[in-house]
């Protein structure tokens, strides 16, 4: 869920480590999903803030 550098764990390779270059899923679908989820996250945060500010009644 986050990113940092550290030493390699002693695990043998079990699968491809690279994202396939011509994959529609990775080159089109994943970026679109990331953008859509970012937008939805911002919308939900704004909604929660609106509740706090009394704009949305509960």
């Amino acid at each position, binding site marked *: 869920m986050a*990113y940092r550098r550290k030493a390699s764990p002693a695990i*043998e390779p079990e699968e491809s480590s690279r994202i396939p270059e011509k994959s529609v899923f990775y080159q089109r679908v*994943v970026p679109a999903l*990331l953008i859509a989820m970012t937008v939805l996250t911002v919308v*939900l945060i704004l909604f*929660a803030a609106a509740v706090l500010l009394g704009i949305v009644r*509960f």
Partner: protein
Amino acid sequence: MNLNLILPFLSTAVMLVFTIMVLQRYAVRRTPAFLFWGIGLAMFGTGSFAEAYLAVAWNKWVFFGWYLFGAALNAAWIGHGTTYLMIRKRWVHGLTVILVLGSLFASYLMLQAVQNLNTGVFTVEKPISEQYGTKVLEEGETAPAGALVETVVRDGQEVQVVQGLLPLGTPVRLTTPFFNIYGLISLVGGAIWSAYLFWRKQVLPNRVVANVLIAAGALLIGTASTLTRLGYGQYLYIGELISAIMMFAGFRLAARPQPREEAARAVPVTAGD
């Protein structure tokens, strides 16, 4: 077949397995992130179990657990696990103190709230997500059939409300946006950011998909909870179940062994680490 019972029960079962696996990792690695994830997931499971219980019978302490752990705290505690991996220790320790104190304060408010519940409105016929809150009826809006409607004074004006278990203006309800905003930013934001970094480097496709699943699962329950607050509680239980499955799948995928070459370059810090 009562879906109000079955869906939360299935969510509870998924979260129980998920929680045990995460806490087992904490026992082995002693990474605080796993502890916070484990606690948050246990809270999620508690909320699901409470929903199943409240589909059968009433108990104010089960309702206490449902609202405090299921609605208010769990996202923030799960997200705090991610925060442990993203920012400097000095800052995260400060946030931990704020989270613990905030959770204790919310617990205190919830303890007060359970003394003033409108238990007369409770029915096992409806999911608890559709009857916990008192809702103000806007002009032209009609109350659902069978709902208990009362006229109360709010901000100096008379308004009609559909009575729920928690009376109008119960303070504990004001705490949930704080926890949920923090949970959204840390859990969903952390997963999206991590997926983006792997995607940008074009490495570790399993970690990309794992983080997308975790983010999507958390967003799903966030959206279902928001709809519940808006009065559309019927989507909460199915949303919870799908969310639990997606986050669990993301965790399992992230936990798979990584190829050595790319792991040496950049090791992601996800639930699987």
